[in-house]
C-alpha cells in the first residue's frame, strides 16, 4: 500500500508525464505549523455566519433576533438544489442579521447571521446512524442536511456530488490530500491526527456513489500523513493511499485525476463523465461525523501561518470566528504584515479586515511579510521566456493570452483558451518579469461574464418586448373578433326581428283575411 506503482498507467500517460513537466516547486514553508498538533481555539464572544459560504444560492435564515439556539441547530436552510444550510456552531442568542464584511474577492459586504455566544456550548440532541444500513440516497440527504461543502476551498455542496452516483454508479472516488499550496498544513494535520475519520468518511462516500475503489492522493512531502492513512486503511482493500509528487498545482482536481488515473476530464465535461469524483480529505472527515454522529458542519481546521505570525500553527475553529481571534491565539503578529491572505498564497484571497469570519471553505490565514509577497516587484515587459508556457498545467500560452487581453481583444484570448484557465497562479509565479498574468485573466473572465450577463439582460428585454407586442396583437385581434361577433349578433338580431315582424305581419294579414272571410 502506498506505492504509486500499484496503479496501472498506459505507456502514453507515462511518456506524457516525462514530456510535460508542468507546475512549479514553490518554497513549501509548511513548518513550523505542520509540526505542531492541532489546537482548539476557545469560543469567541460573537460568531458571524455569512449566508453565502458555498457555491450556489445563499442560505435562507430561519431564525430571528432574540432566538436562543443550540449547537448544531439549523439557523438557515438551503435555498434550492444547489445550496447548503447553516447551523449554529455553539449555543447562544441570535443578535440579528446584518450586512458585514465577508471573505469575497470584491471586498464587499454580505448578509450574515450574528450569534452572541453564551459560552455553555449546549448541543442539540443528535443521533448518528450506521451508514451501512442506509440507502445511498439517504446518505446524500444527510450530508446535504449537515451543510457540508467542499472544504478544500471549492465549497461546492458535497451532497450534489454524492447524488451523481444515483444516476449512474461512479467507480472511482479520489480523495484529495494534495495540499500543494505553500504554508498550508491543515489537511496534513487532519490526515495525521484523524486518519481513521478520513478513511471512514471515504468509505461512506464510496457507498453513496456506488463506487468500487478509493484513491487517496497525498503529496510525498507528507510522509507521516501517508503512513497514518495507510495504517488506517490497512483492512480496507478498496482504499489505496498513493504518494504523488510535491508539485504545485498537483492538488487541482483535474491534475490529480490525471496523475492518478491517466485520464483527462473533458474540457466541456466534469469528472463524473469519466467515472471519477473528487472530494477533499477534510470533507471526508466532515461526512464521517455527519453520518456517524449526526453532527453538522460547524467547525474546521485552519492553518495560521506566514512570516509575520509569531507562533504559526493549526487551529480547530468554529465557523464564524473572526480572523482576529485566530491571530491573537497565535501570539499576534511581529508587526511586519505586508498582506493578509485567506487560503494559500497561490490562490488565496487578500483581505484587509480582520473582522472577516472564517467560513466553511477557509483553510488558511496567512500574514505575509513584504519579502514573502509579490509586493515591490514592478511588472516589466514580457521577454517571451516561455517559462509560463512550460509551467501552465493546462497547456495554455499565458503570454499570448495576456497580450491579447492587454490589447483589448478578449474574444481572441478566449479562442486560445482563456476559459480553460483554472487561475492557479503558476504562470504569474514563474514570470521573471513579474507580470500579473492571473490578474489579467481574472479581469477578462469577469468582463466576459458581465458582458454575457448584459447580453442575457438584453435578450430578456427583447423577449419581454416581443411578448408585449404579441400580447397587444392578440388583444387587438380579440377585440376585433369580439367587435365582429357583436356586429354579427346585431345583424342576426335585426334579421330575426325583421323575420319576426314579417311573420307577425303575415299572421295579421292572415287573421285579417280570415276575419274577412268569416
Amino acid at each position, binding site marked *: 500500500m502506498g506505492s504509486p506503482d500499484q496503479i496501472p498507467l498506459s505507456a502514453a500517460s507515462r511518456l506524457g508525464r516525462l514530456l510535460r513537466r508542468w507546475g512549479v516547486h514553490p518554497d513549501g514553508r509548511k513548518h513550523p505549523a505542520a509540526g505542531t498538533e492541532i489546537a482548539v481555539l476557545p469560543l469567541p464572544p460573537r460568531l458571524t455566519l455569512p449566508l453565502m459560504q458555498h457555491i450556489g444560492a445563499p442560505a435562507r435564515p430561519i431564525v430571528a433576533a432574540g432566538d436562543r439556539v443550540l449547537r448544531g441547530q439549523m439557523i438557515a436552510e438551503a435555498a434550492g438544489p444547489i445550496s447548503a444550510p447553516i447551523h449554529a456552531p455553539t449555543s447562544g442568542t441570535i443578535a440579528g442579521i446584518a450586512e458585514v464584511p465577508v471573505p469575497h*474577492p470584491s*471586498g464587499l459586504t454580505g448578509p450574515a447571521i450574528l450569534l452572541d455566544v453564551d459560552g455553555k456550548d449546549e448541543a442539540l440532541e443528535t443521533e448518528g446512524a450506521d451508514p451501512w444500513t442506509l440507502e445511498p440516497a439517504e446518505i446524500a440527504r444527510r450530508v446535504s442536511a449537515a451543510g457540508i461543502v467542499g472544504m478544500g476551498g471549492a465549497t461546492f455542496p458535497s451532497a450534489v456530488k454524492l447524488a451523481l452516483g444515483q444516476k449512474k454508479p461512479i467507480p472511482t472516488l479520489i480523495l484529495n490530500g494534495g495540499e500543494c499550496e505553500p504554508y498550508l498544513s491543515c489537511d496534513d494535520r487532519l490526515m495525521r491526527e484523524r486518519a481513521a475519520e478520513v478513511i471512514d468518511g471515504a468509505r461512506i462516500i464510496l457507498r453513496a456513489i456506488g463506487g468500487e475503489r478509493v484513491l487517496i492522493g497525498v503529496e510525498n512531502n507528507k510522509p507521516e500523513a501517508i503512513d497514518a492513512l495507510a495504517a488506517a486503511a490497512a483492512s480496507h482493500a478498496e482504499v489505496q493511499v498513493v504518494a504523488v509528487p510535491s508539485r504545485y498545482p498537483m492538488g487541482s482536481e*483535474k491534475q490529480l485525476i490525471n496523475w492518478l488515473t491517466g485520464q483527462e476530464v473533458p474540457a466541456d465535461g466534469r469528472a463524473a463523465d469519466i467515472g471519477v469524483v473528487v472530494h477533499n480529505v477534510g470533507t471526508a472527515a466532515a461526512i464521517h461525523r455527519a453520518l456517524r454522529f449526526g453532527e453538522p458542519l460547524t467547525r474546521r481546521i485552519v492553518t495560521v501561518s506566514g512570516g509575520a505570525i509569531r507562533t504559526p500553527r493549526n487551529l480547530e475553529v468554529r465557523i464564524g470566528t473572526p480572523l482576529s481571534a485566530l491571530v491573537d491565539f497565535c501570539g499576534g503578529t511581529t508587526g511586519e504584515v505586508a498582506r493578509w491572505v485567506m487560503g494559500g498564497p497561490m490562490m488565496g484571497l487578500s483581505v484587509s479586515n480582520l473582522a472577516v469570519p472564517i467560513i466553511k471553505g477557509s483553510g488558511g490565514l496567512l500574514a505575509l511579510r513584504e519579502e514573502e509577497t*509579490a509586493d515591490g516587484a514592478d511588472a*516589466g515587459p514580457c521577454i517571451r*521566456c516561455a517559462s509560463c508556457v512550460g509551467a501552465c498545467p493546462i497547456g495554455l500560452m499565458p503570454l499570448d493570452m495576456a497580450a491579447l487581453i492587454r490589447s483589448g481583444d478578449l474574444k481572441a484570448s478566449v479562442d486560445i483558451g482563456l476559459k480553460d484557465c483554472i487561475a492557479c497562479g503558476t504562470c*504569474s*509565479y514563474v514570470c521573471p518579469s513579474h507580470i500579473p498574468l492571473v490578474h489579467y485573466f481574472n479581469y477578462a473572465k469577469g468582463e466576459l461574464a458581465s458582458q454575457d450577463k448584459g447580453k442575457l439582460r438584453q435578450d430578456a428585454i427583447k423577449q419581454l418586448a416581443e411578448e408585449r407586442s404579441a400580447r397587444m396583437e392578440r388583444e387587438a385581434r380579440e377585440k376585433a373578433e369580439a367587435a365582429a361577433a357583436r356586429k354579427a349578433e346585431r345583424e342576426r338580431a335585426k334579421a330575426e326581428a325583421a323575420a319576426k315582424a314579417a311573420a307577425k305581419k303575415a299572421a295579421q294579414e292572415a287573421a285579417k283575411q280570415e276575419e274577412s272571410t268569416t
Partner: protein
Amino acid sequence: MNTVLSSPHAIGARSVGNVMGLVLIALVPATLAGFWRFGWPSVYLWLVTILACVATEVLCVRLRGLSAGKAVFDGSAVLTGWLLAMSLPPWAPWWIGVVGGVFAVAITKHLFGGLGQNLFNPAMAARVMLLISFPVEMTQWLLPTPDALPGALDALAITFGAGAPDAMSSASLLGHIKAEATKGVLLDQSLPGHYSATAFGMGERQGSLGETSALLLLAGGIFLVIKGVIGLRIPLAFLAGVVVPAAIASAVAPDHYLGPVAHLLSGGVMLAAFFIATDYVTSASTPLGQWIFGLGCGLLTWIIRTWGAYPEGIAFAIMLMNATAPLIDQYTRPRIFGRKRDGRSLNPAETVKARAR
C-alpha cells in the same frame, strides 16, 4: 492595505536581471579564453561594443520617456553588446563595435518597441549588417598567438588606429574550404593542415572573439541548462540540424562535404546554439515550436555553409528563423488539457472507451 490584491501572493525568485546575470556568468569562461588568445585588442573591442550598447540603450530609453535606471540594470543591453562582441573579428577596429552596437540596440531593439518586442536577435542583425557593409573588416581572421600578442599600448593602436596588420590575418576554415572549393580543390587536399578536432575543440583556430572555445561554450551552455535559464530543446535541435545532414552528406561524398565534428567545432555553432538561438525574445516559445526553431536554425546554417555565397551562415540562419518564430508559435500551440488538438472538448464517451481498452 485597502486595495484588493490579486493572487498569487507569492512569486518565484527569478527576475529578468537575474536571468541576464546568469547568462553573463556563463559567457565569462569563453570570453576570458578569447582575451587570452587574441590579447588586448579583443579586450578593447569587447569594452567598446558593450559601452556602445549601454549608451544607446540609455539614450533610446530617455527618448521614449521611460526610466533609464531599470532598463540598464536589467542587463539586456550589456548582454546584447557582449554577444555582438563575441561574434566580431577579435582585432576589428573600434568603430565596428560602435556601429554594430548602436544598430543592434537602436534599430533592432528599440525601433521594434524595446525589450521583448524585437523580431530579430539584435546581435545577429548587427553582425549581418556589418558583414554586408564592411566585408573587409568583418573577415579579418587571425590565428590565435597567445605568445606573441601586442602589449596593452600597442593594442590601442590596433583597435583605435590602423587595424590588424594584413600579414597576421588569414581565412577561417570555412572561408578557406569555400574558396578552395570554388577553385575545384576537394576537401582531401584543402583540409589537411587547416583542421584538427582537438585544436578546434580547445579553440586554437581563427574565428570571432568568443566563438572559438567550443568546449568552454558548451560548459557555459550546460550551466544555463542546469540553472533552468534555457531549455535543452533549442540547443539540441540546433546541433542536430547541423550534425545530421553533415554526417549524411560527408558519408556519401567525403570529398565534397565537411564532416559533422568539423562543422560543430568551426564557426559559431556552439555560441549560437546555446547563447543566441536560445534568446527568449526572438525564438519560438512553444515546446514543439522550439524543436522546430532549433532544427531550422541548424539546418539553414548547414545549407548556407555548404551551398551559400557566404562561408558562415549562422547569423543568416538565425535571422530567417527569427522571422518565422511567431508563425511557428501560432501553429504549434500545446494541446489544451481536456481538449483535442483542434480545440474541441474531449468526448467523455471516447475517454471511457479508451479506458476500457
